[in-house]
């Protein structure tokens, strides 16, 4: 099997991976990026809404335009981006197994890297209820890909389960694409996402039913309707509150969880932090895991947003390049301070506070592990 040597190998060409590639390659390091999709940019190309934050975070710019900018910067920085390339395993902490190419025309090779950055993102949580495997039940992220990337409307009468930002934004975009969103169903007693997104939904006349859940989906060959019900204070359905809603699509926006398979395979130690999506790799202030030379960035290290993923990617790419001597420490420190400062801003405020605390806990877990102190269990 062919083996390629490189300075830095990055798994995932989304927000985090591309930023890591740009930072590292701009210092002169040899950088290779691998992504299983046929286009780089990860989730950015489905995000037709404007981003939040300040100007440094490219706030006010729509997600897909940020994706275009990143692709341009990657092209100019000299990093090699390999698409249709699956990183199927990690061996000895420094070698990736790659299968690249369309089915039946693949090549198989190993990439031995001095530093590896895992930036593979997250996947959608799934919810099981009677009828949940009927065609028409799908992740909200899948529906968003269908409408915004593939230009296919998944259905006409939609129930959204979950009122976090994903549920709210995708509901609005489904309406823009021509579907009717009949209701957003939320188990918690309050709306999960930003008020600005919820406000747009409410002004469009869509009810957001808090303290409600979906009991079942029904239909012969596909979804024809759903039974929803109100929940009491202990999250139990209240008898008699059931409503039968005729719909053809049920979107699940019930959270995401980090795709940690490669980190586990590399031997990275994990911390259990529910606010970040469950078990996440411990890392230090420079995004390096407990396996020396293996870094993480973006949703794999805790589900947040594209803007924080980009800053974590910047940090990981710069740190890896600095560890290899491509940039002197003083210059790296100055850049790093700017990334950290922007990241702190993104994690401030009412919504950011929980993530800021959780990320601090994750870094503390890393240092405790290094000192041999038992990792604190999540509650």
């Amino acid at each position, binding site marked *: 099997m062919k083996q390629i040597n490189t300075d830095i190998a990055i798994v995932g060409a989304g927000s985090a991976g591309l930023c890591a590639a740009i930072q590292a390659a701009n210092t002169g390091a040899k950088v290779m990026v691998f992504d299983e999709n046929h286009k780089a940019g990860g989730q950015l190309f489905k995000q037709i809404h404007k981003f939040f934050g300040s100007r440094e975070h490219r706030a006010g710019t729509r997600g897909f335009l940020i994706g275009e900018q990143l692709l341009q910067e990657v092209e100019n920085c000299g990093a090699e981006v390999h698409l249709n390339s699956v*990183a199927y395993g990690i061996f000895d902490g420094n070698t990736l*197994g790659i299968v690249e190419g369309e089915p039946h025309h693949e090549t198989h090779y190993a990439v031995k890297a001095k530093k590896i950055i895992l930036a593979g993102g997250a996947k959608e949580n799934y919810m099981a209820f009677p009828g949940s495997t009927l065609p028409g039940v799908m992740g909200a992220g899948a529906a968003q890909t269908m409408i915004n990337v593939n230009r296919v409307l998944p259905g006409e009468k939609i129930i959204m389960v979950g009122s976090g930002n994903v549920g709210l934004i995708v509901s609005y975009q489904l309406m823009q694409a021509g579907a009717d969103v009949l209701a957003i169903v939320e188990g918690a007693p309050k709306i999960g996402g930003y008020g600005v997104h919820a406000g747009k939904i409410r002004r469009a006349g869509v009810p957001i039913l808090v303290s409600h859940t979906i009991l079942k989906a029904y239909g012969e060959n596909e979804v024809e309707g759903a039974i929803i019900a109100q929940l009491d204070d202990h999250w139990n359905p209240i008898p008699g509150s059931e409503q039968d809603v005729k719909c053809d699509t049920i979107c699940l926006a019930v959270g995401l969880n980090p795709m940690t398979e490669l980190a586990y395979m590399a031997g990275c130690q994990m911390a259990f932090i529910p606010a970040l999506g469950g078990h996440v790799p411990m890392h230090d202030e420079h995004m390096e895991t407990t396996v020396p030379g293996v870094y993480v960035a973006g949703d794999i290290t805790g589900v947040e947003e594209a803007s924080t993923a980009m800053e974590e990617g910047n940090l990981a790419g710069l740190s890896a390049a600095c560890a290899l001597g491509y940039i002197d420490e003083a210059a790296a420190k100055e850049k790093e301070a700017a990334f950290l400062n922007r990241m702190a801003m993104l994690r401030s405020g009412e919504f950011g506070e929980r993530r800021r605390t959780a990320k601090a806990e994750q870094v503390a877990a890393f240092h405790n592990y290094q000192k041999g102190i038992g990792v604190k269990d999540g509650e």
Partner: protein
Amino acid sequence: MDNKDEIICRCQEVTRGEIEAAIEDGATTVEGVKKRTRAGMGLCQGKTCQRLVMKIIAEKTGQKPADIVPPTFRPPVRPVRIGVMEEDADE
């Protein structure tokens, strides 16, 4: 409501009832449930069902979610055509 027939692992068509039976049979880990039922052994390698299996184990055994860890990950973590590996073995 009786949810025993709910499909938890769709790749291998494993129901909630079968997973609960595996736990009653002594499984206390995701690995134990996987070996008894094949839940998580399909094309997606547990990307869809693993969290649900963890939740069912936590509920049924009273373990803390923090203590329920994923099973061992082995290559390939993504579906790849087996012929690709074969071709290399022939070299």
